[in-house]
């Protein structure tokens, strides 16, 4: 078991390393993006650019520049932006992280509640009218582009109806929970619902499939033979087993979202989270910030993967060999 965990962690570190190299190479391969020229300003003379290039260590060989960047990012933690010079990358990320966490945590509660309820109701009523209706709504939710849904929500709440029934919806933006919990929730409610729609659809569908499978298992038949009520069987027995894959799925999705996969939702609603930070730094080709944000995001994805894998290995010894 320990061996498995160690192997898993080593490969996680390897993945992180490769991603850092990949990001680094992609951006130094981009033509027309000489960081020195951009730092120096709009019409700096060649001498000035050379001076900046030297001061920032941009005249060193690529591997050394990579190592320097990693050193500044992880060890010294003083890596600073190429665009907002002096603005440190690490604090930028630590400031953006709570926004993303607020968005994702709130949305997760909503999608778990709706997804699980929907899945259970559909499974309990399989073959009846309500089942395909719920499943169709699930498919529709999965099929809507998240950014478009967000824009439509903006159009409805900030456009023509803003002066009547949606007057309570504040303009997009973020208010920290420490400043005003009410405003925090009010500003996030629309982003929560938008982000949750997609995942609620997925979870309802997956859970229904799991439940239907479980209801055909032997232990359920046994329970039925004992004369337990159908509702009790569904909630007490089938749901309990079916939640395991849901929880592992949740682990992966939550990790990815915290890591910046909520990018489009953050962009559309102007929430200054990790996704928006990544997006703006990509637009500015601000390599240090991109590197920081991508490493941060990859960390959560890799961590979530590793945790889920290791948890599975505990539950199912066969996995350890693989």
């Amino acid at each position: 078991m320990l061996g498995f965990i160690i192997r898993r962690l080593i490969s996680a570190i390897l993945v992180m390393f490769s991603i850092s190299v990949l990001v680094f190479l992609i951006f130094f391969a981009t033509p027309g993006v000489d960081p020195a020229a951009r730092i120096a300003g709009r019409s700096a003379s060649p001498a000035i650019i050379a001076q900046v290039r030297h001061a920032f260590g941009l005249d060193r060989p690529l591997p050394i520049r990579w190592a320097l960047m990693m050193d500044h990012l992880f060890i010294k933690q003083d890596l600073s932006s190429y665009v907002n010079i002096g603005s440190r990358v690490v604090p930028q990320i630590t400031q953006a992280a709570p926004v993303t966490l607020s968005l994702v945590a709130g949305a997760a509660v909503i999608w778990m509640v709706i997804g699980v309820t929907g899945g259970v109701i559909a499974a309990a009523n399989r073959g009846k009218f309500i089942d395909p209706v719920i499943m169709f709504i699930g498919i529709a939710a999965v099929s809507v582009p998240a950014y478009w849904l967000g824009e439509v929500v903006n159009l409805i709440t900030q456009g023509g109806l803003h002066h009547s029934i949606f007057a309570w919806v504040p303009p997009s933006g973020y208010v920290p929970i420490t400043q005003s919990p009410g405003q925090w929730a009010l500003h996030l409610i629309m982003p929560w619902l938008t982000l949750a729609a997609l995942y609620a659809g997925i979870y309802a569908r997956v859970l229904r499939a799991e439940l239907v499978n479980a209801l055909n298992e032997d232990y359920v038949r046994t329970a039925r033979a004992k004369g337990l009520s159908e509702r009790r069987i569904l909630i007490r027995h089938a749901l309990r087993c079916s939640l395991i894959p849901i929880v592992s799925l949740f682990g992966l999705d939550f990790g990815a979202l915290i890591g910046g996969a909520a990018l489009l939702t953050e962009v559309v609603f102007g929430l200054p989270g990790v996704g928006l930070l990544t997006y703006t730094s990509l637009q500015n080709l601000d390599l240090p910030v991109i590197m920081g944000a991508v490493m941060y995001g990859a960390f959560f994805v890799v961590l979530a993967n590793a945790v889920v894998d290791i948890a599975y290995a505990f539950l199912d010894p066969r996995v350890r060999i693989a």
Partner: protein
Amino acid sequence: MIALGVLILILLSVIVAPFYAHDIAHTNPFTSNLNGTTVISGRTVPVLQPNTQGLGLGVTPIGPTWDFRHYFLGADNQGRDVFARLLYGGRNSLFIGTVSAIICCGVAAVLGMLAGYFGGVIDWVLSRIFDIVWAFPVYLLAISLSVVLLTSGLNLGPVHVGPGSLWLPIVIIAAVYVPYVARPVRGLTMSLREREFIQAAIGSGASDWRILTKEVLPNTLPSVIVFFPLMVAFNMLTESALSFLSIGVQPPAASWGTIINDGLGLLYTRPWVALAPGIMIVITAVSLNILGDGVRDAFDPKAKLRGAV
């Protein structure tokens, strides 16, 4: 069945796009028409209308006429017919979705089978590559690649792909989703390899190539086919998201995503420019997902697949 019908309807409508643009709307959806005029109930009006109220700031494109002969859904900020562009855009969206799904499923099937069948170093290397692509958030990878490729195009030996080519989004999207399909294929191949008929084939001295093509492939193909409609929907959604971030299909060509992007600048005044392509995407993706469920039930009733994220 309804889903299939809807898909065929959408296909037909995008196929007639040139006919519609040329013979019904008499418009060229790829050239700017900033000084154009059109006739509405007998009056000639400009396609781009200057504001005449207040301080007179701003120029607004003509809104929907709800008349198929001209500007059914209004014009975009270049004065082009949005409905004609919607039909042409559908061609690109469906083409990119389908072709990238073919490439993605093909590459994933090959890599997944190789990793699962040979195991050892090959499996380790491929699996780590999957891990890396998987852990690199999808849009980040796509955006980073696009930023580079859109400026310089793609040069791989004799293959040169220009920066405005449709093949760039296709390749990027296909590459990003390979692990989604390759991982289950790998798992399936690994379990197949333990099965008696494969062991028997290995024992009889058949070549790896022969075993892979004659024994493994027929058994993994159904799973890949089950993935296919879902991947088309998936890839189409991703394409639209990339185009929305203006790194997908390049103007003046259109896809549903680029039209949404064009429409965002007009969201509050001419919402239909952004709404219509979004609705088309939703209808198409719903049909594909339902079709995917049907295909799954037909091929593999017990398969547990994750829906399109």
